[in-house]
């Protein structure tokens, strides 16, 4: 439990970050956390996380911005919802994780591949109205750079096999009808989210 900080100087509580996070749409609800640890014992990927959800919320409280936004916790979250259904305080942890991801991206805190994938996927949906695997891949590699493409080559057998079975279309699908409207819907949703957060 004692490994949140490295230096022996006392951790200073910083109210600003706590306030910043608690004013996001779902982060607000994480204020109710009573540190019971139910989420931590429920989470299947907790062992891969830098901090369990419980500890992450405690770090938020203490105002440890770098630790929180730089942590892999939200990226390791598989959105399985186990913690959300078990949290005695009814905190929608999965949604809190989404807010944390947004915040980490917006404030340039991330280099996790998952983050690049999220962004690639979204860009694709925003531009086309549907996900095209080839497009997502291209965007992902562009973000991640050459090292990642090398890795992709190692997976070429799998790719070929998928191609053969028609699981990986070569040609991009058509953009959906009414893409404009979809984009408007998304924009509106984002505006609402920002408003909720206030």
């Amino acid at each position: 439990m004692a490994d949140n900080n490295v230096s022996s100087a006392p951790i200073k509580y910083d109210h600003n970050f706590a306030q910043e996070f608690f004013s996001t749409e779902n982060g607000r609800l994480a204020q109710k956390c009573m540190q019971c640890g139910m989420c931590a014992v429920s989470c299947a990927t907790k062992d891969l996380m830098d901090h369990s959800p419980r500890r992450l919320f405690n770090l938020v409280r203490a105002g440890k911005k770098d630790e929180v936004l730089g942590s892999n916790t939200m990226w390791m979250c598989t959105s399985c919802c186990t913690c959300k259904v078990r949290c005695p305080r009814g905190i929608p942890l999965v949604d809190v994780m989404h807010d944390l991801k947004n915040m980490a991206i917006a404030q340039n805190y991330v280099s996790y591949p998952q983050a690049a994938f999220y962004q690639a996927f979204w860009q694709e949906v925003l531009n086309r109205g549907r996900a095209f695997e080839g497009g997502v891949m291209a965007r992902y590699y562009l973000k991640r750079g050459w090292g990642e493409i090398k890795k992709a080559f190692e997976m070429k057998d799998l790719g070929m096999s998928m191609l053969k079975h028609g699981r990986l279309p070569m040609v991009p699908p058509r953009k959906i009808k009414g893409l404009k409207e979809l984009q408007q819907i998304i924009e509106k949703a984002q505006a609402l989210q920002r408003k909720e957060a206030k």
Partner: protein
Amino acid sequence: MAKKVGVYICKGCGIGEALDVDALAKVASKEYKAPVVKTCDVLCAPEGIELIKQDLAGEGVNLVVIAGCSARVNYDHFDFGPEILVERVNLREQVVWTQPPDDEDTQMMAEDYMRMTLAKTKNLELPEPFIGENLSKAILVVGGGLAGMTAALEAANAGHQVILVEKESALGGWLNKVYKIAPLAAPFTELQDPDVEARVQAINDNPRIKVYTGATIASTAGAPGMFDVTINTAGGEVTERVGAIVLATGARPYDPEKLGHLGYGQFADVITQAQLEELVKAEGKVVRPSSKEEAVKVAFIQCAGSRDPEHLPYCSAACCVESIKQALYVKEQNPEAAVYVFYKDIRSSGQYEHFYKQAQMQGVVFVKADVESIEEGEGGKLAVNAQDLMMGAPTLLDEVDVVVLANGMVPSTLVDENLPPEEQTRILNLKYRQGPELPTLKYGFPDSHFICFPYETRRTGIYAAGSVRRPMDMLQAVEDATGAALKAIQCVEMTARGMAVHPRSGDLSFPEFMMSRCTQCKRCTEECPFGAINEDEKANPLPNPTRCRRCGTCMGACPERIISFKNYSVPMIGNMVKAIEVPEEDEEKPRVLIFACENDAIPALDMAGINRLNYSKWVRIIPVRCLGSLNLVWVNDAMSKGIDGVLLLGCKHGDDYQCHFMKGSELAGIRLSKVSETLDRLGLESERVQMEEVSIMDYDKIPGIIERFIEKIEEFGPNPMKGF
């Protein structure tokens, strides 16, 4: 009263199959010459009841002996009105459900119980209730705070006259000292106005409530139904007669001067919860006491003095909720303000979970931590050093404007033992031989049976409510006051009928003293756990029957054996002991007598039967009102009769006692330590008499307890007094 005994033996519930009922009937009719002896297939069925009723009317039977189930069941079926005595022989739970059927020893056991009960009836008389003179049903409430006002209103609304005494010049108590209160109603999230005016108005508007403010109790004499209370008022002394008393004098904050380690007294901006209330009331908002600037960073330190072996070892129970409330003051005036609560555990019990969540949602930060020190930082602001237990690391909160200590509470009944008696706090000034105030158990809170009778103090008719009873928040105090008012009402109503209050509620018997033989030894006056017996100048006991709870401790204590109840006395139990048939030594059938307390041990024994647990066939059980009523002469009787061992089963004693009469089992233990003398005189091993603690849940342990005791007795061999 000429007694005519009718014995009715039930054959139901397996009794008929396991026992020779006719032989049992003969014990009653031949040995004890009972004029009416009948058997019945199912005695509690309408036919059975009818059978008895016919004899009551036709035969003039007025003492009914029911041989069947335990006295703890079906008592309503076998209630034939106040003129008919009823005794029970427990053949079901104590014999056929614990012993093998159709067995010589089982039959002997059943016959012994029949003999014992019939022997008891020899001296049995119909209790006549004690009705005091000039009884009052009015209720005195001491303390005009939230609990006191609630108790007064509840009792008055139930139709009783109420006298409310408050030492301050106005009603309201703690409510007068606070800016807002924690919510008392759903949704338990909003701060509430203390609303003293409306509460006081309700009291003043109630024609049944008479209020004395600026008044204290000069003395309380008398007994339930007949308390004469002298009140010191601004206009001189007045005396009121009341039937029962609710003590609702609350608590006071723990002395913060003792909290120097948390910066109190050292820094002006370290204050107590009460001081914060004062400050907000005066300034309209939370400010730094030193500069009167609005506070934007506030730290609350929970358990300041509480849950601390150096200070108050207990949880003060209300300070978590109070700090949550005060944290919300800060958030209300400035949502951006930083508020930190350093806690051990948040104990916002019951509905206050919602209040806690509300504070969290308003941005109050709760930190589970051990606060290590408070220091002065830059600009005269404070810094809190703590060990954050969730982070597992030292932490620092700096630039704090105000530090608020949740300094807990001590009961108003706490007496400073270091002061000379005349300077000690006195509230009730009881004219009781056993001292002027309520006996306390620990930490100055009035002693009460915490599990079963929380409101009843050790002075019958005086009920403690609110934070004087134990630390509690306002919501609990309201509930407590309502409960205590109900208890006070029960007390005056029962007293008016000559009945005991808890735990023997409804009991009409009371101890009678054959004064001509009293030696003024003072044992009874000293040992009565409830201070029921006063004394005159010559040390003659002066019993107060309405203070009495009918435990029989005085009866057990009296070396002259001059105290008895109409239906419970030293000779009655002595006769039961003597009625046991003790087989000759060569028959190798030892006998062990068990005196079992009716409150827990007897139910546990019954439950052993209900669960068909088998225990030794050598035991004979006699129920007693409380082990405190054990008179050593019974042990003597048993030993000289040739009984091989005596086992006492009673409630746990000590600080976390379960004894329903609080001191009874403890006193029995003390008496027992003296019994060895007697046994030595008889040339017997003192371990032949032993005491064991059992609670109602221990029924499964009963066979083992008995078994172990019998093994021990068998080691000693048979009682050499057999056959003498």
